[in-house]
């Protein structure tokens, strides 16, 4: 009994302050939560609109797609359908995350309606080195993904930037960040396509059907 009394005497202020401060944070969070979520949604919508210029609206098509990562880690992402002014689906978009040079890179990636070509990507958040790694936000890298085949991409150190193919030319001085972006694409695209096919939103492409037939023959 004496021990409890001693404990309360010593720590009552700490306990009271913890409750009071906790309440203060809870009230602030409750007041701002809606606005914070709306801000994040607006930012995502703005970036997706910048990616797909004909887009008018975005709606979640598949929720919680699991993307397997390194060391058994699994990240989840939602796949959005991109709608034009008439409400027709013109593509899909999703948020993709992966390790960069300094910190995680978060991208918004968009593909066409048949998941055959990329519309491109926009950087949702990154902490890459200013003047070097943060050049991933510039058109030099971004333009190379526009129209590129939605499959395994390859990073090359030199090549023709204007050629639209699966080869992405790295930014000089930001090879690690360029590689990180390409890795993020490669990690996500197959899994996203699988999910879209599984749910019947797209049909298997010729290349994929060929691969499937080959594996069946084996």
């Amino acid at each position: 009994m004496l021990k409890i009394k001693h404990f309360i005497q010593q720590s009552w202020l700490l306990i009271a302050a913890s409750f009071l401060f906790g309440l203060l944070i809870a009230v602030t969070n409750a007041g701002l939560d809606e606005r914070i979520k709306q801000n994040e949604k607006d930012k995502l919508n703005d970036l997706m609109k910048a990616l797909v210029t004909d887009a008018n609206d975005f709606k979640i098509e598949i929720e919680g797609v699991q993307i397997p990562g390194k060391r058994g880690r699994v990240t989840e992402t939602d796949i959005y359908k991109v709608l034009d002014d008439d409400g027709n689906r013109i593509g899909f978009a999703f948020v993709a995350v992966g390790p960069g040079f300094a910190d995680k890179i978060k991208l918004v990636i968009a593909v066409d309606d048949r998941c055959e070509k990329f519309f491109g990507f926009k950087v949702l958040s990154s902490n890459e080195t200013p003047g070097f790694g943060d050049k991933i936000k510039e058109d030099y890298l971004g333009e190379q993904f526009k129209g590129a085949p939605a499959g395994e991409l390859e990073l090359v150190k030199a090549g023709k930037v204007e050629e639209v193919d699966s080869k992405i030319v790295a930014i000089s001085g930001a090879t690690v960040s360029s590689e990180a972006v390409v890795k993020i694409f490669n990690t996500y695209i197959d899994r996203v396509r699988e999910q879209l096919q599984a749910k019947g939103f797209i049909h298997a492409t010729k290349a994929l059907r060929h691969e499937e037939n080959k594996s069946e023959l084996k």
Partner: protein
Amino acid sequence: MANKSMDSASIYKQTLLAGLWRENPVFRLLLGMCPTLAVTAAVKPALTMGLCVIFVLLCSNIVVSLMRNLLKPHLRILMFTLTIATFVTIADLFLKAFALRMSETLGPYVPLIIVNCIIICRAEACASKNGLVVSIIDALGMGVGFTLTLCVLAGVRELLSTGKIFEAQVMPDWFVPWAAMSMPVGAFITLGLLLGLVNAVSKRKA
């Protein structure tokens, strides 16, 4: 009576001015080096960080000063940390709600205000030993001193790394931006030079 109020006014003035020069947290006490080096690549994030620190410092000094007579000596640091963490979380939530882009620019450095030595130092050295008015004035002096220092450092770095201040072109067309100034090396060099300058001025004054 008149002398007493004169003394109080003098104490308040000295407390306020201490943070600006004599006990400037960055140039004289070398506290808060993490945000000083990390968020001073441009003036806007530096100013935002400074305002966040003023808010947290002011709130924590008020709370610590009000409960100073109830504090148990062995639990005081825990109480300071709890108080600071609360107001840092609130500042972070406000930034996310009203300045999302700035919140993303500042990244983890807003939550890291919790471990900023300036705030815990003022709680220990001033707020836990003085009344409410002195604690408020001390928080304002130290906070403004810290913010001004950050802005000066950021001004030099932004000007040399981009040729701009507040995103407005200042340097002539022929100026070639020094990209290194926006990187950590630029922060260390600028801080070192400004510390040397402040020391030289202080010596001359003495």
